């Protein structure tokens, strides 16, 4: 075991980048931007039955400045689009965005004058969750995929 054997018990070796990302991915602070009925599925994912705390993401922040995961949950219309953009811009780097449900991802069945046809028209998106609304299992799956992305983040080479 090389170095660890030389230091004795209680030491492990790792890479700095791996260690920071490992810590980061199990403590995702999320900012839920909830505008519609998908919020119900978000709540059920948060609560005891599905329990997102198992993945270290139970700590909801209600200011974007303290969050590193933006969950856009529900229909985004043109009226509220500048608000969403401002919330995204207020988040500190590094940040990830989940588009939760059909409406946030594509506009859903609202193909009309009022609704933005997918939030990727105004902010970059990392994971799209399909469904109207998505099952909590799909949300948990999206969290695992976000954790994979966090693990791959290059801490030492800034974007």
């Amino acid at each position: 075991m090389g170095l660890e054997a030389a230091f004795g018990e209680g030491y492990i070796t790792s890479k700095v980048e791996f260690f920071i990302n490992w810590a980061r991915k199990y403590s995702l602070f999320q900012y839920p931007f909830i505008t519609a009925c998908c919020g119900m599925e978000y709540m059920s994912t948060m609560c005891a039955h599905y329990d997102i705390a198992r993945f270290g993401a139970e700590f909801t922040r209600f200011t974007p400045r303290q969050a590193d995961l933006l969950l856009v949950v529900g229909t985004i219309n043109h009226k509220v689009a500048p608000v969403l953009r401002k919330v995204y811009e207020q988040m500190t780097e590094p940040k990830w965005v989940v588009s939760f449900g059909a409406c946030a991802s594509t506009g859903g069945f609202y193909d009309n004058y009022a609704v933005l046809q997918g939030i990727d028209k105004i902010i970059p998106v990392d994971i799209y969750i399909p469904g109207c609304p998505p099952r909590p299992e799909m949300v948990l799956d999206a969290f695992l995929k976000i954790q994979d992305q966090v693990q791959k983040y290059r801490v030492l080479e800034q974007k």
Partner: protein
Amino acid sequence: MSQAVLDQLKGRFGEAVLETHNRFGNETALVKKESLLAVLKFLKEECGFEMLMDLCGVDHLPETPRFEVVYHLKSFSRGYRVRIKVRIAEEDPVVDSAVSVWKGANWYERECREFYGIKFKGHPDLRPLLLYPEFEGYPLRKDYPHKKRQPRLPLLKPETR
């Protein structure tokens, strides 16, 4: 049940009540635009319709007159409901405001103005209610282009589906 109200209305206003019907149990009277405010006042003060439940616009595009405003009234004291309709021409989309009769008409009329472009004469404040200030046009009119979008931000990519 509200047939009595329609009869009362016809007796009082005569020619101003253009048509009444009772389809699906919905007692409805089509009245002339000029006497609308008098009809509404009469219904509130003498027939006991305390509440304006809803006010909405309708666009019957190929027909003339093109627009219609529908007032849904409810009387709690008698348990009656009645609908009053008024037709409005496209060239002069103005109708008297009902705010002086029911205060609750305020936001309904603002909504109707921004979605159909029907103006309400005597309304205290006809600012847009739901749409954003830079929105142009009247989106619920039948001739509003189906695919027309008015984004407030420059988009990163075009809105295609």
